[in-house]
């Protein structure tokens, strides 16, 4: 019986947590800024980071499929276990769909995505104002949903740690935190 995530899975989890929360905050902050060189820079950085996160999540999913995570504790009712799996599936789905919606929105608005200003990513859709506006709303709603699911994810982890007093939180923490407990 394994009790911990692999170091790679832990590293990916925390790296992406930082990147995703940063991207969410940046995304909501930059959209209302008046046009300026800084705004154009922030948009570019947001897009570059978004592409990076998309590639990281592909790698993470491949790792997840080939490295079985520790099982949920037995004390959890079946319904909650299902909810936990569904929540994680939804997080992964949003991590895939949100960058895609941002990339398509960018193309529809007539701004190609060029990763780090060097690698052009092809446009899958042509410039189209209606489609651009639709994708903008889609990107925004998906991110509001993402923020809500992340809040639920964090809340559930804290509930496991402080109320259920199980190892759900510690098993994703770096090994030195978990060694004390076991």
């Amino acid at each position, binding site marked *: 019986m394994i009790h911990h995530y692999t170091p790679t899975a832990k590293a990916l989890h925390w790296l992406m947590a930082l990147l995703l929360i940063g991207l969410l905050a940046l995304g909501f902050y930059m959209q209302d800024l008046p*046009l*300026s*060189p*800084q705004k*154009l*820079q922030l*948009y*570019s950085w947001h897009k570059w980071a978004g592409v990076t996160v998309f590639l990281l999540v592909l790698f993470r999913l491949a790792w997840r499929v080939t490295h079985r995570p520790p099982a949920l504790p037995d004390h959890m009712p079946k319904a909650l276990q299902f909810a936990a799996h569904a929540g994680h599936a939804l997080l992964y789905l949003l991590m895939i769909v949100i960058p895609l919606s941002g990339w398509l929105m960018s193309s529809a*608005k*007539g*701004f*190609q*995505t*060029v990763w*780090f*200003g*060097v690698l*052009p990513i092809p446009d899958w859709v042509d*410039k189209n104002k209606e489609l651009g506006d639709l994708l903008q709303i889609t990107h925004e709603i998906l991110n509001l949903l993402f923020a809500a699911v992340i809040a639920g994810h964090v809340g559930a982890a804290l509930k496991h740690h402080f109320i259920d007093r199980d190892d759900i939180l510690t098993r994703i923490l770096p090994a030195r935190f978990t060694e004390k407990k076991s």
Partner: protein
Amino acid sequence: MKLLALALTLAATLSFSAHAVEYHQVQADQSAITFTYQQMGVSMDGKFGDFTAQLSFDPANPAAAKATLDVALASIDTGSIEGNEEVAGKPWFNSATFPTARFVAHTVKALDDRRYEVAGRLTIKGQTQEVIIPATFTPQGNAGVFDGRFTLRRADFAIGEGPWAAFDVVANEIQIQFRIVARSGE
């Protein structure tokens, strides 16, 4: 003798001017002034929708050619409404004070039977610069098709001042392409 020379000169001038064709009815639906620039390493396109041209051109005597081109800067399309509003402002074109960009050709040199080098003065935002534009001329019925492209350095005309003056976000070089189809006659 002097008189003869004068008469010859006059005759020559007249015969040239008889060949020179005035192209001043710009065919807006077939003509275009577009531009390409780099923004954060991303290639962006734009265009000007409103311009007029006065062209007098005789392929047999390009040296006598005259060309004046006026571009209404408010007709710019940078690709986004936000961008169009931005470039009308003082740091960019200051279109309220300088509504028009004007190119006046003063020397046309033939490179071969359809390629020319057009030298002239380009005035944007109160700044005048000497530019040389390679162009081609193709007669098309009673119309003439003038095609060309050149690179404009926006800093030469103070286009994009203050926070926009650095080239790390919007590059200095703007590639301008034009196709002007103009009809001659009444």
